[in-house]
């Protein structure tokens, strides 16, 4: 069997650079996910509002996010806004804006769905006990909503982590870009590096996403 080409990573600071690239991916994911969860809750609650205008606006927002490839959104925000609006956004800020824009819409829809899945009579039985509106939400509805949300939002979070690989298209040097650079630089010395290096990238993504989805499984079991 030929060499897997993993040895390239042990030359110089290659492994360190790869991990630094991974950190860029993780940092963008963490910031985006954190904002998306908070804003998604607000948007989700607004989505259940009776107000037709609010509903329509949020519907359009969600559809835009669903229809547009994330890469197009990245290009619009990073390249598009520079000339038209004169904004000089860094690639990182552009990426985070796009990911929050996307994550908030999807998270909002998950929150909306979870809220709607709680039967009306649960609200009523809580009210019948004399709980006020705040108490009904705080003690009865929100805890049940969060339990239903966990598996759904974990799926979204891992998707967001994986999709950060797109940000190299606007020049951010994240884990996948570093991997490419290492492979390019060592093309002559280790022609098999593509396999080994991408294999390691795969393992790194796995190490990030797997604990998250394990945690979701555990919470799901405990709260079933």
């Amino acid at each position: 069997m030929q060499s897997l080409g993993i040895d390239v990573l042990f030359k110089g600071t290659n492994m360190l650079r790869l991990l630094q690239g991974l950190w860029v991916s993780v940092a963008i994911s963490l910031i985006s996910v954190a904002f998306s969860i908070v804003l998604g809750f607000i948007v989700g609650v607004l989505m259940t509002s009776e107000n037709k205008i609010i509903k329509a606006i949020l519907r359009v927002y969600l559809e835009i996010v669903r229809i547009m490839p994330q890469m197009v959104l990245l290009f619009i925000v990073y390249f598009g806004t520079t000339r038209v609006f004169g904004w000089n956004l860094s690639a990182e800020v552009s990426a985070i804006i796009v990911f929050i824009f996307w994550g908030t819409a999807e998270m909002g829809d998950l929150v909306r769905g979870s809220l709607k899945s709680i039967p009306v009579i649960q609200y009523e039985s809580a009210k019948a006990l004399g709980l006020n509106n705040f108490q009904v939400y705080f003690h009865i509805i929100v805890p049940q909503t969060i339990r239903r949300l966990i598996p759904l939002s974990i799926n979204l979070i891992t998707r967001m982590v994986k999709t950060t690989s797109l940000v190299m298209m606007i020049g951010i040097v994240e884990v996948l870009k570093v991997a490419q650079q290492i492979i390019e630089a060592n093309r002559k010395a280790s022609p098999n590096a593509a396999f080994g290096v991408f294999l390691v990238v795969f393992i790194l993504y796995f190490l990030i996403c797997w604990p998250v989805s394990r945690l979701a499984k555990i919470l799901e079991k405990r709260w079933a």
Partner: protein
Amino acid sequence: MSELLKVEHLHKEFDKNVVIKDMDLTVKKGEVVVIIGPSGCGKSTFLRCLNGLEEIQGGSITVDGSLVEPKKKDIIKIRQKVGMVFQSYELFPHKTVLDNIILAPMKVQKRNKAEVTKEALELLEKVGLSEKKNFYPRQLSGGQKQRVAIVRALCMHPEVLLFDEVTAALDPEMVHEVLETMIELAKSGSTMLIVTHEMAFARAIADRIVFLDQGEIVEETDKVKEFFDHPQTERAQKFLKTFTFDE
């Protein structure tokens, strides 16, 4: 005996669809009133109006001297006086049996946790469920859930208890355990309004029978046994006949 609940000229409609028309009913302290009638006659809606879960379009409902108005803040106080048990139990699935029971006394009535827990355990003991206190609702049978729901309502010390077809979702062998619990409550002097399709039970527990059809009281009597043996109105006769079989 004093009047605990007074309903006058109650009118309720859903989008022009009249469900209850011009209904009057008075319930005294300690009375057990059983409401029967065909499906869709407005029985459940009537109960839901009593604790302000439904808006009413006319008339008035008074509980212990205060007017029931769903949109006013006072509704919280009234609901503490009116316990309600639902057909589908509606325990809170994310809370244990004990937490289901002590939540409202602690959060709404601001009672001390130790004291409420003690009372909750005593009540659970009475309905034979004290060893289930740390179980989650999903681990209980329907009959057990319903008994917990009754305890949950009782722990608020309500003046009157509403039972909305509480055995309709239960297997026959579990119906009995729930009805037993309710008969015990009636004996202890609780004021109860019961909507049910269990005629033998209605006959056993009722101080007064209210027969409802198409949103109106057709027959109301405290001569319970006579009502079941010889109903006065044709509609009641017809309704009661659906529970017997000619050979």
